[in-house]
């Protein structure tokens, strides 16, 4: 495995990167809700992201 691949894995799967990704996902969810109003996505995406943030926050348990 080349150094670049190792380094890129380190960045992509770092806990801070995953948490940042969740923030971006949450922001995108809110943006679509504001821009496009009530829709099927409104009843789906926020719940998924909320659950994912709560699930990832329990990471210290393993």
């Amino acid at each position, binding site marked *: 495995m080349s150094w670049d691949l190792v380094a890129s*894995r*380190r960045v*992509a*799967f*770092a*806990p*801070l990167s*995953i*948490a*940042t990704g*969740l*923030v971006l*996902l*949450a*922001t995108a*969810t*809110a943006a679509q*809700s504001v821009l496009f109003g*009530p829709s099927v996505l*409104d*009843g*789906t*995406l*926020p*719940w*998924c*992201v*909320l*659950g*994912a*943030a*709560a*699930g*990832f*926050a*329990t*990471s*210290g*348990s*393993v």
Partner: protein
Amino acid sequence: MLGSPVWRGNARYVFCGGLVLGALTTALGLLVGGSLLRFAAPTGIWRWVIMTATALLILRELGVLRFWLPQNKRLVPEYVDRHGPFFGPLQFGFEMGTSVRTYTPSALPHAAALTVAFIAGPWAAICCGIGFGLGRSAMTLGNLYYSNDNRWDVAWLDHERLIRAYLVVAYAIPATVILSQPALG
């Protein structure tokens, strides 16, 4: 920790599937249990209750407040491979995914549980359950792909305050979207 057969090969993905199934089971259980209690007050009241509870739990998550939260401080036995290469990891993941037999170092799952119990419909509960399981799976897979020597845990501890702050933001934004939806009354 990563020496267990549960973490090797495809077993890791079966484990993650178990996490999702366990979280889904808990979410649907909360939905059923919460539905029986919702009749005690109008939905608008529950919205304010959830907003208040979420604010308190977020303050706890940020270390501003300290109070006790229920958790079953037991770990699932890691060597569950006696159930085979498929059902062992699946059971391990399922039990951990339900969050009723694990340490819970964060207050956000409690906030999510209350929101599902008192606000969510069936589809929302399913989405939240799947999201929760995927969030836990992100930890598992992130840990395994990051390194072979638990350095992921070190990286978590190195940035714990910032990560917790990010996760509070990632939780608070969709919670605001959900609680501001007019259909809640």
